[in-house]
């Protein structure tokens, strides 16, 4: 495979991924905390109240990042699913599976905060608006992925089936969004979602961006941590995983494990064609 020359593919070997994640996550936690504090400070103490909505608009600083993360994580999950289906890289399945719960939680949070923002702004917690409805459907797509992955006794098969579902869902998300929007606009006229003011003050935008970075980095950290646990439990019989669990993985063991994994891959690839 020509792909082997791409340096990034080094991390498709579980031990290499584990070590990378081990190194990255402390930094990610730190960066997430930093941006969270900065975002909350700017959001609550610098950004002025909105001239129409008063202080309730501050919910935007968590609502919008959560909604963005929900959609972004779904697409990322589908992308990892596609990588798993096409190249059979097991770490891609681990990543997709690690993304799903965080994505579902982010989608749930965007619905929750959206409801609480809608109550003072439009006078109702819920309308069957295009965005709300398609976000709700997105939540169910996440739940379906998680349920299908968990329902299979064979992890490999379950992973492939769930990956296929994620891809089909990703193709459907825009169709669902546009059909719901079209349906809504035909029946209810102008969307109430566009009720926020004309333009945002720079400090509001700054708070929004800071919080978005915080959410993004938090998601990365928690996904990597979950993927680490998953890797360890999948490789529980291997020497490197046991050493890693004790916190004393030597370079020598790691390199041996990587070489062994590559050999196994080569065997399963040539065996898989027959």
């Amino acid at each position, binding site marked *: 495979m020509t792909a082997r020359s791409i340096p990034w593919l080094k991390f498709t070997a579980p031990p290499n991924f584990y070590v990378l994640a081990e190194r990255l996550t402390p930094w990610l936690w730190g960066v997430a905390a930093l941006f969270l504090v900065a975002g909350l400070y700017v959001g609550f*103490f610098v950004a002025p109240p909105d001239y129409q909505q008063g202080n309730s608009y501050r919910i935007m600083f968590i609502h919008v990042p959560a909604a963005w993360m929900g959609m972004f994580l779904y697409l990322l999950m589908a992308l990892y699913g596609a990588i798993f289906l096409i190249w059979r890289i097991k770490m891609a399945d681990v990543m997709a599976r690690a993304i799903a719960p965080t994505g579902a939680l982010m989608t749930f949070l965007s619905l929750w905060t959206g409801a609480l923002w809608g109550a003072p702004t439009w006078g109702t917690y819920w309308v069957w608006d295009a965005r709300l409805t398609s976000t709700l459907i997105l939540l169910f797509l996440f739940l379906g992925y998680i349920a299908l992955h968990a329902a299979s006794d064979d992890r490999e098969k379950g992973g492939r089936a769930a990956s296929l579902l994620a891809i089909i869902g990703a193709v459907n998300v825009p169709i669902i969004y546009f059909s719901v929007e079209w349906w809504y606009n035909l029946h209810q006229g102008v969307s109430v979602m566009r009720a926020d003011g004309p333009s945002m003050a720079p400090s509001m935008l700054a708070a929004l961006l800071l919080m978005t970075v915080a959410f993004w980095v938090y998601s990365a950290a*928690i996904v990597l941590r979950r993927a680490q646990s998953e890797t*360890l439990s999948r490789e529980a019989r291997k020497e490197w995983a046991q050493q890693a669990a004790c916190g004393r993985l030597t370079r020598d063991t790691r390199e041996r494990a990587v070489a062994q994994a590559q050999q196994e891959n080569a065997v399963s690839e040539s065996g898989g064609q027959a």
Partner: protein
Amino acid sequence: MWDSVGDFLAMGGHAPYVWGSFGMVAAVLLVEWLLVRSRRRRVQIVLQRQSRRSTANGSEGE
């Protein structure tokens, strides 16, 4: 911008909405973090036990 702590907490009359949102986000992220951490600990403990057993037997599991 805020005159007092009470003024800050009142959020201009929108306190239940604003704090309900931020509180839920904080709670969900905290619970997620705790769950992931406890799972990590559990996996590590299982593997450490296995590691001890395999070094005692002088072999790598079965």
